[in-house]
């Protein structure tokens, strides 16, 4: 079954970059521009994985993750790969405390990105057309 990945990032070109990599690897994608949009999306339909930016308008990624982890299961357990330009240990620790499963510092190469996505989705990349 095709895995659905929700990309949460306010940068249009970053969303496009992830979408390009994910769709070529056989994933289904959806997008949100901030944490609030993502929460609204997830309350309507689930995702198998979340790609979460940190600095976003309206609701930042860590506030979103804390809100997500307070929801009922299975929604609260949705794995989250946090991607951010913030590279300091304090930022990584804050993301982990908020509920991130992995933290990658931007810029991120597509092959590395897909390896983490596959890991969090529970297997090898889908479709393998990349």
């Amino acid at each position, binding site marked *: 079954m095709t895995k659905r990945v929700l990309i949460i990032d306010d*940068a*249009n*070109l*970053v969303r*496009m*970059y992830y979408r*390009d990599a994910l769709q070529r690897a056989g994933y289904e994608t959806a997008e949100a521009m901030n944490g609030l949009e993502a929460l609204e999306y997830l309350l309507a339909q689930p995702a198998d994985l979340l790609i979460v930016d*940190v*600095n*976003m*308008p*309206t*609701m*930042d*990624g*860590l*506030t979103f993750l804390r809100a997500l982890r307070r929801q009922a299961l299975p929604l609260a357990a949705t794995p989250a790969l946090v991607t951010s*330009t*913030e590279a*300091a240990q*304090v*930022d990584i620790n*804050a993301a982990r405390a908020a509920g991130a499963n992995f933290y990658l510092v*931007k*810029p*991120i*190469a*597509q092959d590395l990105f897909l390896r983490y996505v596959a890991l969090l989705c529970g297997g090898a990349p889908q479709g393998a057309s990349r």
Partner: protein
Amino acid sequence: MPLIRKDAASSAPAREHADLLRSDDADERWRAARSLATSPAGAAALGAALAGEQDPRVREAIFTSLARLGAVDSVLPHLRSDDANLRTGALDALRAMTDAVRPHLRSLLADPDPDVRLLSCELTRALPAREANSLMIEVIDREAHANVCASAVDVLAELGEATAIASLERCATRFAGQGFLPFAIQVAIERIKAQQEATDG
């Protein structure tokens, strides 16, 4: 003399509200923050209260009041916060006071901290397209940090003009080894060219 009396009279309630920003009662802090939205004398107290304020509703009220006051100097320090929620609130507040932020933009875009430069690129989206285009060209021509360039390229993809293309191409060459930037620059150039063609008819 009347002016002096008026100032003294108007700053007294501001001091009271500023004191209430330190109350143990979140509702009281929230009301104080809202009350200070029309008191320039309260801007420093609002800015100082942000660092210790943990209640999201009070934080939002403080940022809203600071935005209404156009109190850039009280908001800017929070762009450097380790707290993502504070950074986001500061950025949202600064977006809401474009005219007050404008004189600070060049120095923000040249700040020693790349995270501040990166976030400041976002603030140019509210400027007229030609002004944003010019500032972002300056950034990508001199910037050594890939993520700051990426932020500038994202702005140029939306607001960029043909004059940005040569700088974008040079930036793509400088960061040829970075997967994301060449991808983003290619998209930005395609969009600018498409926009140019549409404008030229």
